[in-house]
């Protein structure tokens, strides 16, 4: 019964310790294909497909913001719709109430959201697991309530007339679907690259360490509290960016953007996409938007079917699409 494992023989067979080059080539190929598809889409598709693509990209930015927290840091937030909504309200209030130009409103909004999410994050990250889930949900309800009750946000009616960027200096109008598509694509790609850069940095590797074993991360010498707040803030800002795009896309923002349903949709996209891949959230967003479109064609009971879909995904699909795909490739090899 005793296992006499001496280290040397086991180790001998174990390792070619050069990092696999194949993965890099694969990744570059995937990215190049995606970029090409993004560029070509406006020329080969209909208006309807472009609209869907815009929705997918916005949802994808939202999900990749949330993924920094759920996938990388291992903190499941059920309240990140608050930042999504704050983004939209931020530019709405900036442009309509204070009369600032959009190019000033956007950075001011992002800075404010960063400050708010740092404070909210500092409070929420004192808990973990299900308590974290509850607290984030409670905060989200608080902002939702504020958006409903405050005069500044115009209550349940919401704010209309959210401006899209003024591109007249380029001779373009962002009201056109192709131009707006290009604008969203540019912002989404920039956001994705930024997130990818940050999660693949020393900072990102600490977040993974926290997800894997928080006590060990602390024993290694990391002030994990600060890293968690940092992840929370980054996540909040990226979600706010998605909220800004969404408000511009619909020219409109109302409290529903901060509802618990909205937070739930974010979680679902992250889970579908597979929690730890950078492209995952976008794939999750694509699946989600298409399923939502499909559901709206067959039934008016969106919540009912969405809820069932959500439960099925949580119960049977934890690795996400990317994970399932990898397992498949692994078997096939």
């Amino acid at each position, binding site marked *: 019964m005793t296992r006499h494992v001496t280290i040397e023989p086991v180790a001998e067979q174990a390792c070619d310790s050069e990092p696999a080059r194949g993965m890099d080539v694969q990744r570059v190929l995937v990215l190049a294909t995606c970029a090409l598809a993004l560029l070509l889409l406006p020329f080969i598709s209909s208006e309807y497909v472009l609209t869907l693509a815009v929705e997918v990209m916005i949802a994808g930015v939202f999900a990749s913001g949330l993924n920094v927290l759920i996938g990388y840091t291992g903190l*499941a937030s*059920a309240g990140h719709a608050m930042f999504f909504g704050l983004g939209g309200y931020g530019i709405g209030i900036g442009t309509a109430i204070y009369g600032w130009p959009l190019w000033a409103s956007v950075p001011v909004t992002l800075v404010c959201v960063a400050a708010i999410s740092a404070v909210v994050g500092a*409070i*929420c990250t*004192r*808990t973990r*697991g*299900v*308590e974290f*889930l*509850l*607290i984030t*949900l*409670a*905060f989200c*309800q*608080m902002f939702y*309530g*504020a958006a409903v*009750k405050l005069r500044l946000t115009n209550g349940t009616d919401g704010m209309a007339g959210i401006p899209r960027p003024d591109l007249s200096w380029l001779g373009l109008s962002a009201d056109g679907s192709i131009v707006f598509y290009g604008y969203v694509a540019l912002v989404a790609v920039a956001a994705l690259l930024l997130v990818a850069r940050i999660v693949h940095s020393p900072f990102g590797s600490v977040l993974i360490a926290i997800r894997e074993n*928080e*006590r060990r991360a*602390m024993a290694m010498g990391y002030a994990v509290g600060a890293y968690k707040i940092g992840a929370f803030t980054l996540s909040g800002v990226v979600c706010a960016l998605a909220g800004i795009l969404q408000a511009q896309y619909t020219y409109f923002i109302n409290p529903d953007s901060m509802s*618990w*349903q909205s937070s*739930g949709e974010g*979680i679902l996209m992250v*889970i579908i996409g597979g929690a730890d891949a950078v492209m995952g959230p976008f794939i999750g967003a694509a699946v989600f938007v298409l399923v939502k479109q499909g559901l709206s064609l067959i039934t008016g*009971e*969106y*919540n*009912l*079917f*969405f*809820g*069932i*879909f*959500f*439960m099925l*995904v*949580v*119960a049977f699909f*934890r690795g996400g699409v990317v994970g399932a795909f990898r397992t498949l490739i692994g078997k096939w090899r």
Partner: protein
Amino acid sequence: MQMFFLQFLNGLQLSMLIFLLAAGLTLIFGLMDILNLAHGAFFTMGAYAGWLVSRMTGSYWAALLIGPLVPFALGALLQSAVLQPLVKRGRSTHLDLALLTFGLLFATAGTVEYFFGSSFYSIPTPAILSGRIAMLGIDYPVYRLFVIGVGLGVALLLSLVIDRTLIGATLRAGVDNREMVTALGININVVFVIVFGCGAALAGFAGVIAAPIMSVYSQMGIGIVVTTFVVVVVGGLGNLKGSFYGALFVGMTDTMAQAYLPEAELFAIYVLLVGMMIFRPQGLFGSTGRVA
């Protein structure tokens, strides 16, 4: 002073309603480590079931008795047919299960809308409990006093059952050491199913009780369940005593803020929550000394 007394009673009434929800949530979490985010759905279901029964029989008391049976059955079914198999499969952490019940929250809201639409309904107050009673210079609705009485009664009953009976001893042992309870020849899975059902039934009971005061509509469970979450975090997750005092704290804060500081109405309970997080993250009665 009369104004304050009135608000005090209102706060007490709200506290007791929240307590009924928080108690169910706490029982389930304390014993099974499952955070049931769909708890508000059981509240809604109880209210609708009660409304149907009262419309058919015309009796409030029938509604109060039969209404909670629907959430009991569905709660027991959820635990035995969905959650338990997932736990057994060993892949699902309690965070996964919480997320699963989050999906259930959507599904039940959708189901209720499908069957009942988004109209508002109400259960009439029974004749004995309608009217007002004069006390200390104010006229207070009898029904609201009844709600307070029921809440205190349930709190007393629960604490007696858990501290003084064999059932309670089994439950307490189950929280500490599941293997031991199994070794005693008790089928812990059956206990889980029954407790889950009872927790759900408590929420449904609260739904029927609330129906004459609040309107019955598809989203009625959402607002109150978030307040309940604040209660269980303030009181310490999984602690029954904590959920009682937490409910008192939160209910009073909410009511008093609405009465005296209307601008802060939305924020008051969250301020309480934030304060608790800063000074006592484990809650009023949460276990201390947890290392990281």
